């Protein structure tokens, strides 16, 4: 899976009146990503490979083409990124980190492959769960990304996401994690990377997601946060991540998923946002970009498509706003 941007570019101006999602183009685009080894960018983005696989696979599932990537090759690659300590790196030889470990668990869940993983790795889930649990800071409840200690609510969310998918939430102190998230809340209802940090839509997604998994949405100032999130929509229909910043397709996910968890998706104009996301497609070579006319990449492709799924774009699989995975998958893993 390549994280290389392009070769396509998003449509510029004059889109047809009828807004169309180019499903087949996007499928082919994602399938083509691992064939671009003759581009320097392919090698420069190796540190995102396992994330990229999760993004591409999720996009394909939402597009209704779950088998478009070779399942066995994915599992082989995934296992080649596993370290003895139960953590995953971005690619073989890359150090273990929370970010890739979460992607690995999401891929295993999406492929319904936990059984096969256990066959390949004895007590695989327990090992992965332990890697994650060991990264919790017992004093504050937050999580580090790896042994080097960077802390961020992104890692806390990732931990609860992956552990809940494996049914191993009891390995960590969820109440303490919840307390930490709550301490990151700001007067505007939003959340930052750590206590005192400015509200940011990406961080709002991780914090609201973590609280939803923990069953503590009651702690969220839902009116204020809903209002703040709704103000992310700009005149052109796109969403930004913070006040007075530019729109970007990936915020279609971070903002909308949070609004969906709060039951406030109707507080923005879905039709205009749909149009904006669709304008970011490359109608010829597939893929989505951050804005119309820019280079496409698989990151914006999945978050644009997941956004369209939340907007009930016809023909797409339902996405789970808490996990950014197909709802059918999370239902299977969580039993609810």
């Amino acid at each position, binding site marked *: 899976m390549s994280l290389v941007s392009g070769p396509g570019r998003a449509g510029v101006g004059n889109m047809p009146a009828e807004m169309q999602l180019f499903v087949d183009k996007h499928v082919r685009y994602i399938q083509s990503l691992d064939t671009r080894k*003759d581009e320097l960018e392919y090698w420069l983005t190796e540190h995102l490979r396992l994330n990229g696989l999760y993004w591409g696979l999720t996009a394909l599932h939402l597009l209704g083409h779950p088998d478009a990537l070779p399942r066995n090759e994915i599992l082989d690659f995934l296992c080649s990124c596993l370290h003895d300590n139960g953590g995953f790196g971005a690619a073989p030889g890359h150090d273990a980190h929370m970010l890739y470990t979460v992607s690995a668990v999401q891929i295993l869940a999406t492929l319904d492959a936990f059984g096969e993983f256990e066959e390949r790795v004895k007590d695989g889930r327990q090992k992965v769960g332990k890697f994650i649990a060991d990264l919790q800071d017992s004093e504050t409840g937050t999580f580090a990304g790896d042994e080097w200690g960077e802390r961020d609510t992104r890692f806390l969310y990732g931990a609860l996401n992956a552990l809940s998918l494996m049914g191993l939430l009891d390995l960590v102190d969820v109440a303490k994690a919840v307390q930490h998230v709550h301490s990151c809340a700001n007067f505007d209802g939003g959340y930052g990377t750590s206590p005192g940090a400015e*509200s940011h839509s990406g961080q709002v997604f991780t914090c609201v997601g973590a609280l939803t998994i923990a069953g503590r949405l009651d702690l969220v100032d839902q009116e204020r946060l809903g209002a703040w999130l709704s103000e992310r929509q700009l005149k052109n229909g796109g969403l930004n991540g913070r006040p007075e910043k530019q729109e970007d397709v990936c915020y279609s996910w971070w903002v909308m998923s949070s609004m969906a968890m709060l039951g406030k998706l109707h507080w923005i104009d879905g039709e205009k946002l749909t149009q904006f996301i669709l304008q970011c497609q490359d109608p010829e070579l597939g893929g989505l970009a951050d804005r119309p006319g820019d280079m496409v990449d698989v*990151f914006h492709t999945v978050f644009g498509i997941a956004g369209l799924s939340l907007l009930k774009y016809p023909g797409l699989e339902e996405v789970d706003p808490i996990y950014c995975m197909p709802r059918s998958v999370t239902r299977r893993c969580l039993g609810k």
Partner: protein
Amino acid sequence: MASHGISRGSGSVVRSEEARQKEQQQIEAYKDLSDLVNTKIAEKQYTVEVLGLVTKLLHENPEYYTIWNHRRRVLVALVTEETQSPDELLQGDLQLTFVLLRKFPKCYWIWNQRDWLLQKAESLLGADAAQELWAGELQLVNKMLHADSRNFHAWGYRRIVVSKIERLGSSTTDSADTSSSLAQSEFDYTTKMIKTNLSNFSAWHNRSQLIPRILRERNADAEARRAFLASELGLICEAINTDPFDQSIWFYHQYLMSTISPSCPPNGFVVEDLTNGERQKYYENEMEYIKEILEDERDCKWIYEGLLGLAEAYLEVDAGTGAVTTKDMRAWLAELKRLDALRRGRWEDLEKRLQL
């Protein structure tokens, strides 16, 4: 992480044979360097020479997080073996991360390395040297925020740096000791940033975080606190008058209003002993001021949103004076629906919630 804001232009996607060959050579060179570093590290060759290779590779790809980890492994070994002075190593890394941050200001791993370095320096070089180093970091953050005043990483790092300086400067563990506090100078910094650009919500946000602290540290009495609130309201009202279409400003106004509300958590109060009568007076004054702006800006939705928010707050503490009428609120809501169709669903919910 991904390509943000990179325009493809209208050029051809097909590369010439020459360009293709050149790219092949670049790929080979990059892969060779990367393999070499990984091999040396696997062999635990934690030497100055390997550190140089790591530096070269990070210049080519600062997002390659494993290489930053390798770098730390080498640095720790070099310091332990005392082959190189810690200070020299530290200066080299500060220089490297500075150059890279200027080029890649949003790369998490570089900021992270900087933080790690300074923490290490503190344990190796002692508190006095660390104090000086952290003070130097403030200069770095100033430069980064000068280049991009909303840089999320820079603001976050700034808060870390400030808390370190304060902790190291504090001669006692007594939390009441505020001699080393930077709250006031940080507050002044937000004033400076706001005056340069009213739209800088990152600065407004940081200001809101500092206010309760500086009031505590000043031992501000009831009168001083009221004067402080008045001065903040003066500042924000002037900002509203300058650009009523800027949402950063309105969010800060909302923040100030939230500190007046009876439901404000006690550690967030600006004035601690407000009576409901005083609250009403504040809300009335704000409404009056905003209505004045309305006369020139009938199509600014933020004005109606502000008025409705104030009216709602007013009604919570109202003892039946009837200064806010349902008729007014209905009219403001109608304007919101007219001017802000994107959020129509929100205004409909608000209508129900306020029973208008």
